[in-house]
């Protein structure tokens, strides 16, 4: 199936390229997708091409051939989409396996292996997918609804209970059944209305039943396929994985959106952020994530173009809210929680620690989400005086040593975060100083990441922790804030329990009406801005360095890791 046969795709592609050129012009950034599309239809392509002066040239004829080397910090662990749980593995899997759906840059769902977005039943429980015609795996075998069903079965079907899938909990809870009335149709019935279902579970890479179907559940855990997938469903197929070094992938000629231009895509493992910078400069890698501190060092390199965009990643800290824990009583009072936040100059943290590559957060939803409310009910800005007065009002008076105390208890606690993350280390130091200035004694303590996760999820003897988090495209934030996740094993480490919050979150999950959901999340954000159980410090920016010879990349808030529908469209100007 060549590109030209699918007219829709060609139009979509052109529009995508148009958007890329469009968004480079800052003054047009705010026009939004709708305006862009109108302009596109109105023949603005020629207009923009004519205005090409001053911006990087986009030659419209893509060259076939060549390779791209993408660098990152972690090696992959598995190449099985239903067994993977880490970003690195997911990223490489995303290059080799497509799912039913994918994300657009802004998080909207677009069809991938499915021909269109699924039809939803009136009660919201049934999703009917129609696959594209003539889908093929990399070995030429057709991709059918059986493969889709098989893939999901690995995580929800009791027959495959021994498959160690991290997705089992969610999928077995929400999937009632999957039917395949014909090779092109997949009908998924959910057990209850679950708004994030498509966004969270519609993107898993589809696995080949004809390769894995004959294996027992236990055998699938250790199958060779997981480290050397012989058959793929995505833009690239697997060539080799040299452990600790790189994964090499080659063009999949049977890809539904057309064979990629590139001969090879290589995912290379790098030691640290300095290596990324060095190798972007020397050209050893073509694409790599750039540390905010190295941005300026790379900006001046003529062969590297920088891509920066807001991402649904944020850094926040959480108070211990369980009164039975040592520091719990300190933070029960809302005034204390708010005061500590008022005392933080978060903008200077963004400027100094992240070199300006981030945005102070006013809400627990990322700015990239459609549910984001920019001005919640309580806007906490840097206000040291207010912080002090709040604490005074709450009964915490400064002692002779300058530290506040109430009823003999000092306002003194320990803050933990993971060692090895420079920005988080710096943030704790800044917080320590800022709180010292208002009479609070906070001590930083750096621990290893697995210990931090253990603390947050199960042990929970911390006083205060600082960590970063990555949201998916759906604005549901229950994992962090719903009381049912406050049990050991859940991510509500702060032990935040609030009936109103629970109700809002549950209601928003139970309806598919986006307007209604947006309103509910708005109320939720207002509530959180007042209660501040886990203040968000900032929303990070995603920064990538891309060699100027690489064309066709389209990084966006939801298109940076595994979900990249644009992978196959990448080409290199020198064809090497």
């Amino acid at each position, binding site marked *: 199936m060549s590109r030209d046969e699918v007219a829709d795709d060609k139009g979509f592609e052109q529009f995508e390229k148009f958007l890329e050129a469009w968004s480079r012009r800052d003054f047009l950034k705010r026009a939004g997708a709708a305006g862009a599309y109108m302009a596109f239809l109105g023949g603005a392509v020629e207009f923009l091409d004519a205005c090409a002066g001053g911006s990087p040239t986009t030659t419209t004829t893509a060259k076939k051939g060549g390779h791209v080397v993408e660098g990152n910090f972690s090696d992959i662990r598995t190449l099985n989409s239903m067994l993977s749980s880490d970003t690195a593995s997911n990223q490489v899997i995303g290059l080799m396996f497509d799912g039913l759906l994918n994300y657009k840059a802004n998080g909207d769902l677009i069809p991938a292996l499915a021909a269109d977005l699924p039809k939803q039943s009136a009660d919201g429980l049934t999703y009917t997918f129609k696959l594209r015609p003539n889908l093929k795996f990399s070995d030429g075998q057709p991709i059918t609804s059986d493969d889709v069903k098989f893939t999901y079965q690995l995580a929800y079907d009791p027959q495959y209970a021994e498959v160690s899938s991290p997705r089992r909990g969610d999928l077995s809870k929400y999937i009632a059944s999957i039917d395949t009335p014909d090779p092109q149709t997949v009908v998924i019935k959910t057990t209850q209305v679950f708004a994030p279902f498509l966004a969270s579970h519609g993107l898993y890479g589809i696995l080949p039943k004809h390769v894995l179907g004959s294996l027992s559940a236990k055998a699938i855990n250790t199958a060779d396929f997981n480290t050397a997938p012989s058959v793929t469903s995505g833009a690239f197929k697997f060539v080799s994985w040299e452990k600790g070094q790189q994964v090499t992938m080659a063009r999949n000629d049977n890809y539904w959106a057309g064979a990629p231009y590139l001969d090879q895509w290589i995912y290379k493992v790098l030691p*640290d*952020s*300095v290596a990324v*910078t060095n190798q972007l400069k020397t050209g050893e890698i073509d694409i790599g994530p750039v*540390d905010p*501190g*190295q941005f*300026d*060092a790379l900006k001046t390199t003529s062969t590297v173009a920088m891509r920066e965009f807001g991402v649904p990643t944020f850094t926040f800290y959480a108070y211990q809210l369980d009164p039975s824990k040592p520091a719990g009583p300190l933070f029960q009072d809302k005034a204390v929680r708010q005061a500590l936040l008022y005392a933080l*100059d978060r903008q*200077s943290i963004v*400027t*100094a*620690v992240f070199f300006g590559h981030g945005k102070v957060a006013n809400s627990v939803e990322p700015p990239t989400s459609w549910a984001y409310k920019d001005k919640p009910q309580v806007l906490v800005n840097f206000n040291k005086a207010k912080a002090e007065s709040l604490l005074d009002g709450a009964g915490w008076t400064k002692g002779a040593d300058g530290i506040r105390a109430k009823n003999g208890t000092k306002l003194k606690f320990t803050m933990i975060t993971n*060692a*090895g993350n*420079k920005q988080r*280390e*710096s943030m*704790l*130091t*800044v917080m*320590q*100083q800022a709180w010292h200035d208002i009479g609070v004694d906070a001590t*930083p*303590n*750096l*621990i*290893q990441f697995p210990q931090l996760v253990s603390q947050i999820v199960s042990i929970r003897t911390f006083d205060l922790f600082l960590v970063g988090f990555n949201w998916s495209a759906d604005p549901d934030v229950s994992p962090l804030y719903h009381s049912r996740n406050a049990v050991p094993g859940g991510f509500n480490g702060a032990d935040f329990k609030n009936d109103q919050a629970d109700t809002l979150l549950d209601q928003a999950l139970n309806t598919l009406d986006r307007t209604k959901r947006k309103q509910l999340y708005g109320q939720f954000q207002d509530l959180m801005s007042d209660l501040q159980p886990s203040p968000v410090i900032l929303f990070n920016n995603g920064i990538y360095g891309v060699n100027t010879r690489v064309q066709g990349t389209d990084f966006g808030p939801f298109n940076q890791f595994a979900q990249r529908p644009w992978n196959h469209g990448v080409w290199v100007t020198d064809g090497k």
Partner: protein
Amino acid sequence: MIGPSRVAELDMPGAAIEGASTRPAQSYWNESWERLRANRIGMAAGILILIFALIAILAPVFSAVLTHFQPQTIDLSQTFSPPGGKHLLGTDELGRDTLTRLIWGARVTLGVALLTVAVSLTVGTAVGMMAGYYGGWLDDVLMRLVDTVLAIPAIFLFILMSILFRPTPVSLALIIASVGWGQVARLVRGEVLSVKQRDFILATRSIGARHLRLMLRHLLPNVLPVLIVAASLGVGQIILIEAALDFLGLGIQPPTPSWGNQLTNAESYFFHSIWLVNFPGLLIFVTVLASNVFGNAIRDAFDPRLK
């Protein structure tokens, strides 16, 4: 990292001292001191280390009088200032004064090194002395223990222990010493074995001197030269180990400054603030160099044959 100590083993200074111990001890030590004093470079190295140690001990004074900054005071408006002016050696990513942090860092780095050496030497000498002196099954058991400790690649052991025990300066010193004592024990045992057969030892035993007295008054002085050399070389080695652990993220944790973690921290700012990397790096280099030079000088002083 195993290098110098094992080289010392092979050099067998004990053998060289063998002839010396029949002379009255007094003059041997005096002679060695004279030889050391004549080695100008060696003396200079030793004095340098002494100066650094003094600065480290007096860190609060220097902070108050010389730089007028505290090591933990941040100033986000002054980040990455180049050397000169108010901040003699510039500031780091949070606006903290580099010179102050280097002075306080000396405290941590040198403190860890000295504590490690002290513990290693004490435990190692005790074990080596007992193993060498008593011999027999005690020797076997103790040496098997030493073998076990030395069989695990040290760096692996450090990594595992640093993950488990929160790396404060004291715990880090103990972690590094937990391997170091083994090498010292082997060294001391070798010395004791070669000295044990000496006539005066046998004579002393025959007149009923107690074991402990024998060990302390007669064996220990003969072992001392080897220990002093090991100590001096050890300081440099341990500074490097601590720096390596800091680089791996397992050593002294920020915001507590140590030369190693300042060096590591500054690496990603190399492109625009090179002084943040070079100052701690130079200090480590100079101190380790001095420790090596001084250690070699002491060894040469105790055994002129090897010069």
